[in-house]
């Protein structure tokens, strides 16, 4: 498979050079087109920082992120338009990732407008249907929807410009247990039908087990373990991965 992402000795330091904290302390990996990669780690392991760097929403302190031959980590915003149409993030909490004062139709249509993606007039209604919402939902405001429906709206927004890569940062951890399964299923279906490259970040190994084929374990800004999900689940080599594994909650069937 063709290499899509190449991450080279990526570092991100917050705070000053002397008293700062390394959220990411030298991370290297590649992602192939069509691959489904899980990034696992507890709070503070650097997952969210990594997501922001992969989505070019933050700049690394050193190292770089190369997407399809283009160094996105030092590119000016004006050069990132094509990249943004190809890589879309979904955030953790849809209560804060949707502007409360915008109609759902405008929210979902925003990437189309801002990235000037050529689209048909019915595009917003189509993506809303793709995530299981009525086209009429576009006329309403986010607060009129439940948590799970709001996350569907956020996913619809990410899908609107027909991206190649979906980066989901803890996509279900703000949702209640019964809704989680539905959103995970939706993501799995979308990835399969659209042949998306998926990057899922989670502290919950069960989400990664359901969505990904390969996983990396992040701890204190470093990759401590990586491999196929099955292998990671069956025989984690590091003590840390074992403790994460032990923390998988059993979902009620």
């Amino acid at each position: 498979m063709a290499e899509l992402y190449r991450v080279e000795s990526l570092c991100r330091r917050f705070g000053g050079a002397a008293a700062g904290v390394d959220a990411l302390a030298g991370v290297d990996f590649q992602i192939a087109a069509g691959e489904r990669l899980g990034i696992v780690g507890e709070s503070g392991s650097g997952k969210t920082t990594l997501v922001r760097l992969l989505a070019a929403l933050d700049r690394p302190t050193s190292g770089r992120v190369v997407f399809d031959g283009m160094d996105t980590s030092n590119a000016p915003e004006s050069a990132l338009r094509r990249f943004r149409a190809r890589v879309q993030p979904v955030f953790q909490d849809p209560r804060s990732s949707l502007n409360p004062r915008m109609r759902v139709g405008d929210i979902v249509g925003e990437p189309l407008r801002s990235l000037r993606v050529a689209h048909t007039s019915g595009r917003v209604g189509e993506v809303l249907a793709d995530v299981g919402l009525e086209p009429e939902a576009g006329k309403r405001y986010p607060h009129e929807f439940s948590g799970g429906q709001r996350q569907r709206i956020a996913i619809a927004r990410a899908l609107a410009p027909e991206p190649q890569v979906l980066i989901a940062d803890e996509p279900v951890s703000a949702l209640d247990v019964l809704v989680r399964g539905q959103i995970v299923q939706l993501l799995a279906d979308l990835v399969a039908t659209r042949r998306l490259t998926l990057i899922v970040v989670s502290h919950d190994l069960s989400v990664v087990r359901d969505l990904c084929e390969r996983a990396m374990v992040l701890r204190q800004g470093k990759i401590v373990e990586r491999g196929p999900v099955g292998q990671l689940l069956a025989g984690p080599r590091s003590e840390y991965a074992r403790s994460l594994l032990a923390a998988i909650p059993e979902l009620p069937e």
Partner: protein
Amino acid sequence: MRKLQFYLGLALVGLVVSAALVSLVWTPYDPLQVVPADRLLGPSPAHPFGTDGFGIDIASRLLVGARYCLLVGIVSVTLAALVGVPLGILAGQVGGWVSEVVMRLTDIVYALPALLLAILLAAIFGGSTLTAMAAIGVATVPAFARTARAGTLQVMAADYVLAARACGTRGVALAARHIWPNIAALAGVQASIGFAMAILAEAALGYLGLGTPRPTPTWGTMLRDSQEFLFTAPLQALWPGLAIAVAVLGFNLLGDGIRDLTDPRLREAS
């Protein structure tokens, strides 16, 4: 209770607004016509608030004064908001040295009291409604800039701004679609409170003789004219003072009311 505050503010502001509107079409007497025979009359059916030192009906002057009070408030607050809000959004959105420059500029204006500024302007251009509005407007800019910047910083930290950036939205579009709609209520509160401040400042300028010149009746000049009769006819000072208090209280209550009604934390609780 919160609603009560809002409605009370609305009622008081409504009173001032209707007084100004009524004065445009009707006043009981000519508010400018001096009637020497009627000097300093007490309240009576013919003159419910009495007459002033020139024999002019106080009720008529109060009604017309409401017009100038609102005019100065509207113009100075609009001016301050039009300059202050975009500056504050810019400072909050861009950050860095831009934010520093904007904030230090507001510090400088803050350090200069509105009254001093007005005295300065009046000394250069002569006391008039226009100088009063300009001085109050300029002095109110920092309050709007700071409020807008604080609100913008809060909005910029929200995930929906991150999502908008991932959608390629930036610059003016980000400010127009995401920042402004989410800080508009905050700006509205600031406008209402700024209005109250402007009314007070206008009255103070009128009192000092630096605002709208005679014979135009403003509440500030009415207060000023009344002080020579403070011991012989104390009611002279009461009426304009009361009018100012009603207007200031009204706009303050309205501002607090808007804030409470639009505060999402309070809104979600109710």
